[in-house]
């Protein structure tokens, strides 16, 4: 099946996750071979996913761990786990 660009955009996630059936994947690849725009959409989406997943985008605040464990120590001292009066 000959796909137009709009169809290909609908398949970008499936293509990246490798969840397309073999025929659709082949159709998408055939389109990508000659379509500069869709190739750039695919590459840019993939690269943006790599960048957003990078640990440097979100960093733990300085001292986060120390403050967390200090607060936990206090909470643990106050209550044993699953005291009857507590509720989620």
């Amino acid at each position, binding site marked *: 099946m000959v796909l137009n660009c709009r169809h290909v955009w609908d398949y970008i996630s499936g293509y990246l996750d490798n969840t397309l059936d073999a025929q659709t994947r082949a159709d998408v690849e055939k389109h990508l071979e000659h379509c500069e725009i869709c190739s750039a*959409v695919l590459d840019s989406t993939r690269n943006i996913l790599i960048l*957003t997943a990078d640990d440097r*985008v979100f960093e733990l605040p300085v001292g986060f761990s120390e403050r967390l464990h200090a607060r936990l120590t206090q909470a643990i001292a106050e209550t*044993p*786990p699953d005291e009857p009066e507590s509720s989620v």
Partner: protein
Amino acid sequence: MPPQIEARDETAMIERVLGGQTETFHELIRPYERSVYLMALSLLHNEAEAEDAAQEAFIKAYRHLSKFRSESRFSTWLISIVLNEARGRLRRKQPGLTDSIDDTAEGSVTPAQLTDWREIPSESLERQEIRTLIRRALSELPVAYREVFVLRELEERNVQETAETLGITSASVKMRLHRARLMLQKQLAPQLKSAVPVSRRRFPWF
């Protein structure tokens, strides 16, 4: 998931905490501090509030540890607790913001149509400006898409786990993730392209 986490016997650690060795709880949660904070931050946008929500989530996890059922992963359970905590805070601040989204509605996202896209090198993340652009684009996603995106892309949960954590279908997870990805592409591709200087010239001899 790093192998050292897989190798830990978390069931035994949880039993020790419940049996009275409460200090083991510190060790139990240590690998998940970042995940829990990230989940809170992705909903709340405010570092101080995200930190507070993360702390609350860990305290709730401690207090309700006996309710944890080992059929799900401990980390997944922690994520669902912090998600509830963050959603509750969000609702109190902005009621209506977490309203459901119609995943079956037509209307696909049109990506940014650039040509000559160059790979944005990961060294560009050394620059605060680039990290800010990415964080802002993520924060502008609708909440329902952002939750799916963070669980799938940042927390590396599979479709099934994401669906269970959020209480939605696998089909919705896939649809929201797809739309979130294209929305980010649409927003970020032009910004990154202009923010990152072209490192390789087409004709280096010029």
